């Protein structure tokens, strides 16, 4: 009987000890939190330094504003499949597009090449503007179809697939039209950005060569 009481007492003591330590941990945590955010007084600026700091802030704001792209530019959200045609902070047009599917294609056989169908992300420029573009099918297009890769370039050319216009932004990637308008808004492409006919026409006309493209 007495052993049972001792065990209960030990368990109670352990429990109380645990609660005391936990209480201490909470006290410590709250003390840390109370020190944040740092008091408004912060690192004080001496009165004589204030005009200099104000000038510095204005200069930084001007520099930041100067980083914005000049003229009309394109912003593409690959997650939402949206293209925004912008000028400074104004959105001139919003288009539903299709971006890369993220699928990996592996070549069967000995060569073991592979392709990742992602739309590249980053800052690009419009490098080419093409009317009535035709598609020179790369190797993966044939591998995906299970077809033999042709030797002649002529056998790779396909017209009508890319719509009426194409804007090249490097490494074989284009903003172009599509036959599959029902899939706009979904991630279905091999990396290019597919746009509906009307939006593509508007974007093509508005954007000059050298315009910035931001894809994120």
């Amino acid at each position, binding site marked *: 009987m007495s052993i049972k009481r001792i065990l209960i007492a030990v368990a109670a003591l352990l429990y109380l000890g645990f609660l005391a330590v936990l209480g201490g941990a909470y006290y410590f945590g709250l003390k840390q939190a109370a020190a944040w955010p740092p008091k408004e007084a912060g690192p004080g600026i001496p009165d004589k330094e204030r005009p200099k700091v104000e000038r510095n802030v204005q200069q930084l704001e001007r520099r930041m504003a100067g980083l914005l792209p000049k003229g009309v530019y394109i912003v593409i*959200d690959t997650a939402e499949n949206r293209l925004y045609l912008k000028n400074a902070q104004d959105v001139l047009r919003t288009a539903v597009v299709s971006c890369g599917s*993220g*699928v*990996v294609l592996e070549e069967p056989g000995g060569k073991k090449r592979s392709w990742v169908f992602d739309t590249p992300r980053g800052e690009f420029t419009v490098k080419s503007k093409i009317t009535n573009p035709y598609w020179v099918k790369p190797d993966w297009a044939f591998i*995906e179809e299970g077809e033999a890769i042709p030797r002649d370039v002529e056998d790779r050319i396909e017209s009508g697939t890319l719509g009426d216009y194409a804007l090249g932004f490097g490494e074989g990637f284009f903003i172009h039209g599509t036959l599959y308008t029902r899939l706009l808004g979904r*991630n279905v492409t091999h990396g290019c950005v597919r746009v509906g006919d009307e939006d593509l026409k508007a974007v093509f006309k508005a954007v000059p060569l050298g315009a910035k493209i*931001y894809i994120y």
Partner: protein
Amino acid sequence: MKKAALFTVLMAAVLAAAAVPEAAGKASLAKKQSSLNSEYALAKDPGFYFVLDVLGRKLELRVRGMVLRSWPLQSMRFWGQPDFSGNVELVRKTTLKAPLRIVIKPGSEEPAPAPAAQPSPAKSAPANPAEYDLEALELKDMPKRFSLDFDNGLHVTIRSKAAGSSGTFGALRDAWRWYVALPLKNLFGRRGDKALSELELIFDGDKDAQAIYWHFFDGIKGVIL
């Protein structure tokens, strides 16, 4: 005599009251200069970066000083050393179920080449294109709960409001972790030479958390204000 003393006290009170906003103004100016300096260092390069404004309760993806996406915080909670502001870099993004890329190997016994790659307009399909089950990695495939580790030791858990703990066991495990394990770890344990810094950011919609997972890549730099 009494009047003079009263006048002196009143004048002192007025001057003290005027000095408080002056000091606050100076502090906010200093803070603005510091945050602009931090952001300019990132914005002058063409890469994307993020700005986590803890007091402003929002997370933003930016490039060249331009806000691309802004996600307002529904709520947040924190344990540990709160001095985590400044320029940071994402070291690791972890989740329980990371989305996997679909691999197509033509000629093998895998599923046929992705319909995603070559959808047929002639095929019978659901009325709403959003319902197509495509072989593709899309926003809806991204996790609604994941964590980010930064180079300053800050560990951030990001989740949508709806992506709480699943089931009683999950809720108990999460409660134990947040209300017992983390306070004790904060008191006794350290991660190497860095104190514990654990931040949880909760967003309203599933899509917000999923979009953050989509856009935040390893190595992305950012500013925590």
